[in-house]
């Protein structure tokens, strides 16, 4: 087996971190609206597009200057707000009214797919038609050249890849504190578990759900903003493949726990490129000629979806760990 390089490992950690945030958001909206949001991948791409536009309009002038580093704060922040609002609009304008009218889960799912199609096509139109200051045209541009380089312990990598995991961890901790230490955060968990009881206690469940959707969208925006430096190019249609990995991580996490989503998302995002590159290097070494399989990388996500649903549809959080550990002990003859 040929192990991936440190550079590649750093890349995979960054990718895993951003997927963790995406899965977290998807799971949050799934727990509130009880419907998988098929537009979540495109929400992330919207975050990427916002970053692209910021660079095209403003930041290209500062490339190489210290001021340029503020992009790593400004872009995610702007993306957080705009994408958060977009998700909120999706919830308020589409899902909530439809659910209120008694539309079933299939209708709600197709409605999220409809929102996805609207979003992808509007974004495509915008990127084609919007005036561009630096790139000439916005569609399909790569931001790889705009990611500041950095070298740590002799490993050459980029700034976004180093920052992304820290941002993800910081956001996860913040969210955890919010959900366990603040009244509104506890109300969020309460409203997800038992909305009608929450209502009888005076909690405005609608408001809580609105905040959930805003947060979910916001996190997708942050994630997409960092992803924009990693992906080959910013294309609206890319969301339709990203969504498969988001579902994979969320299903692995059990679709019912935000901690499961974080773990599931990171595992899928980290393992997907790592496994693929390891397999590719190993095959190349074994066969003695260059084998390229990275274009099939996403099949890993599909495989995760299928295997988890076949073996443990409840995901990681649904597994009976005591039972498993107990069995392992008995088999191993310990204890």
């Amino acid at each position, binding site marked *: 087996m040929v192990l991936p390089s440190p550079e590649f490992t750093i890349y995979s950690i960054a990718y895993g971190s951003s997927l963790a945030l995406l899965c977290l958001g998807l799971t949050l909206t799934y727990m509130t609206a009880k*419907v*998988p949001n*098929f537009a979540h991948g495109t929400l992330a791409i919207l975050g990427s597009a916002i970053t692209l536009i910021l660079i095209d309009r403003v930041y290209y002038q500062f490339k190489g200057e210290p001021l340029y580093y503020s992009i790593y704060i400004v872009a995610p922040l702007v993306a957080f707000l705009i994408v958060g609002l977009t998700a909120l609009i999706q919830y308020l304008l*589409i899902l909530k*009214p*439809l659910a209120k*009218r*008694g*539309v079933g*889960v*299939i*209708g709600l*799912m*197709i*409605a999220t*797919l*409809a*929102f*996805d*199609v*609207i979003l*992808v*096509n*509007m974004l*495509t*139109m915008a990127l*084609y*038609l919007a*005036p561009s200051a630096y790139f000439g045209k916005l569609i399909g541009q790569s931001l790889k050249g705009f990611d500041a380089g950095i070298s740590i312990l002799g490993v050459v990598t980029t700034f976004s890849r180093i920052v992304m995991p820290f941002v993800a961890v910081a956001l996860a901790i913040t969210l955890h504190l919010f959900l366990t230490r603040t009244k509104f955060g506890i109300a969020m968990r309460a409203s997800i578990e038992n909305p009608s009881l929450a209502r009888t206690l005076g909690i405005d469940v609608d408001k809580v759900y609105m905040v959930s959707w805003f947060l979910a969208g916001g996190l997708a925006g942050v994630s997409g903003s960092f992803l924009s430096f990693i992906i080959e190019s910013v294309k609206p249609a890319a969301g*339709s*493949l990203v*969504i*498969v990995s988001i*579902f*994979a991580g969320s*299903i692995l996490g059990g679709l019912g726990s935000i901690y499961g989503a974080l773990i599931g998302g990171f595992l899928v995002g980290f393992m997907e490129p790592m496994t693929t590159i390891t397999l590719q290097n190993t095959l190349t070494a074994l066969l003695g000629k260059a084998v390229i399989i990275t*274009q*099939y990388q*996403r*099949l890993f*996500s*599909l495989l995760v*979806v*299928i295997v988890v*649903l*076949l073996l443990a*549809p409840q995901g990681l959080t649904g597994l009976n760990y005591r039972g498993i550990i107990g069995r392992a002990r008995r088999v191993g003859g310990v204890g």
Partner: protein
Amino acid sequence: MASLIARYPRLQSLLIVVIAAATIILALPLLGLTITDVFSIAIILIVVLALNFMAGYAGIPNFGMALFVYIGAFALAGVGTRVALALVELTSPGFIELLRSSYPLILGDSSSFEVFVRVAGDPMVNRIVTRKVESVIEASSILSLTLTLAVFGFAIIAGALTGVLASLAAVRLREDYLAIVLLAFSELMVSVVFDQTDALAGGPNGAWVVRPWPRVGALEGLAGLLGTIPDVLISLAVGLAVLAACFIYVERMANSPMGRMLRAMRDDDLTIRVYGRDVAVTRLKVMAIGAAMASIAGAIYATVYIQVKAADTYDRVTWTFVPWAMMILGGMANNWGAVLGGIIVYLGRKAIYYYAPAIASVISPILGVEASIAGDILRAQLPNILVGVLIILVLYLRPQGIIPEKPSKTLSRREIEAIT
């Protein structure tokens, strides 16, 4: 406004009728519809009927239709081309050798096996060889009949198998899981596996197919009588015939005990819990039949649109999303509704396509973009945006669609038991 509409159900119907009428009137300039338009409508209607069977009657949220349609197209592009080459080589041995000597630069050092791979996998070889093979095949009614049977046989079997495989992981689970799995499977098969593997059917460049129809010109005796009939007319005839057959099949199915069982399964969670195993088996059957129908549609489609590109032509919006819009607009679990919705949405999209340049000429000065560029972009994106808006509006205003499902008598427990 929304509450006003909610209060007066009549207003809903009126609104829908107005929207439908407006669409048709806007579509009037298109009354010079071409034969290919009629053909495309027939094909998309087969897909909508298949979807209605799966989603409308059986409650399977099939978000992966595009893959099943593509499998049919692959039956021609990936399998038909190779079967055709084999047929020609079998009946006139030395054909491959002849190809090699005619194109030494391209095929000179390819083994026979490699020629078979490259006939669909390599754009240049594909272009040359399919035309040559086609001229041999179309000269013989036996060869073309054999090819037709092989291609459609493959389309049906592979379509059904893909339908089963795609849903297997979630067939026992709730609808949302099923929807996720079907979307993920379809998306990855079409735009990763088929689109990234040249050897299957040309990857992103796609492959040209060998048209399979027995030529009327080749049917001895009739040749003089009819002359040669254009291929598209044969495809149209086949498409309409299959459409009729599918309509009759789905309609009869819907009114059979099996159909009522499907609806009971769709409407009642309890049925799923009580008859879990049978529900899984029934769902798989429905997946197989519906996917096979879609696959046949894809195969017929590829006889006219003979360059088959996986992700480019068989994209999720055109072959999954638009059929859903057609079905929801027309009325889920109503076949007449599905047909009506299909025609309206098709014409509506055409109309937007037609009017896009006019809209572009208005907005382009404001945006400071060239009118032709704006026109192209509007043509590509606007129909999709409007279909998205349409779905949401219909779900809100009239979730049962234009022609709602006919109420049917509910299935008694004894009947369920008798069927399962």
